């Protein structure tokens, strides 16, 4: 299996969030195929940049994608197409 780069991991997390209304951290770790420790810097990055937001529901923490996160996903797909077309 090819190792994902930083941006691809971010894309995977955002895609999981986009497909679901709100996601628990354990679900995110499982779906994104990451460990408890390795997901932390990505979560910090996504929250800090406003790509996702934390919500509390019955004392449980959930995460959901923001419109900015959606825009980033589209931009990412475009960047990937550009990169693939030139073989960069």
């Amino acid at each position, binding site marked *: 299996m090819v190792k994902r780069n930083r*941006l691809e991991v971010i894309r995977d997390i955002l895609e999981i969030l*986009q497909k679901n*209304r*709100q996601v628990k951290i354990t679900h995110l770790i499982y779906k994104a195929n990451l460990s408890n420790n390795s997901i932390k810097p990505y979560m910090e990055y996504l929250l800090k940049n406003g790509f996702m937001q934390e*919500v509390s529901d019955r004392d449980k923490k959930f995460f*959901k*994608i*923001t*419109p900015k996160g*959606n*825009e980033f*996903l*589209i*931009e990412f*797909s*475009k*960047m990937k*197409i*550009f*990169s*693939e*077309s*030139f*073989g*960069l």
Partner: protein
Amino acid sequence: MSFTLSLGRFYGIDSLIEVLIILVAIVISLYSHKIYKIIKEQNYKYFSWAFLFIAVSFTFKILSNLTIYQRIRIERINFVYTVFSQPNYMQILNFISFILYNIFYLLGFLILFLILTKTDKKEKIFLYMYLSIIAILFSIYFNFIFHLTLILILVFLTMHFYENYKNHRTTNSILVYIAFLLMLISHIFMVFSDVHSLIYMISEGLMLIGFLFLLTNQIKLKKFTYNYGKKKQARSNKRYLRNTAKK
């Protein structure tokens, strides 16, 4: 000091083609720079530089076209003496713009070659740069040397883009492959451009079509946002707003 500019041999058609090429090269350069600003990956920065250099080179080519009738025929070994002993400033301007076109153009394609072949060893880069300088110096006396060097670089680039197309099999990758194939054919024609002026125009036309293929690639990227992105984004944003309103 007198300034005598002309539209050149083809009533400025070749210069018009070059303006279009400059615009396409700038669009690609800006997009690559945008990616670099987001990802911070060096490859995209150099890729952006490569297309920027190509755009700059064509600007000098236009200047060279406008002063084409002032071109100096260099027959002496010491070209610096030949050029700067000429009393006509326009001849000097033509020579300098022509040389700068050669430098920036070759540098642009060389950077593309270095990025795509993933050459990162300093010794190799130095050697390629040195050989390019030699090619530019030789092209002062024999113009076809410049085109032969570019043909060599473009052969490798075209091969790379063909391999890339085979790996991805996407419309975008075939567009880039065809674009560089046309640029290669254009330079093959350019070697014989002194034989007949029509060959020069065919070469310019092929170069323009090549860059238009690259522009199509960029336009397809824009369309992708509209076709694919909007639906998904709208659905997700709607959900986001609904949930925020509930709170």
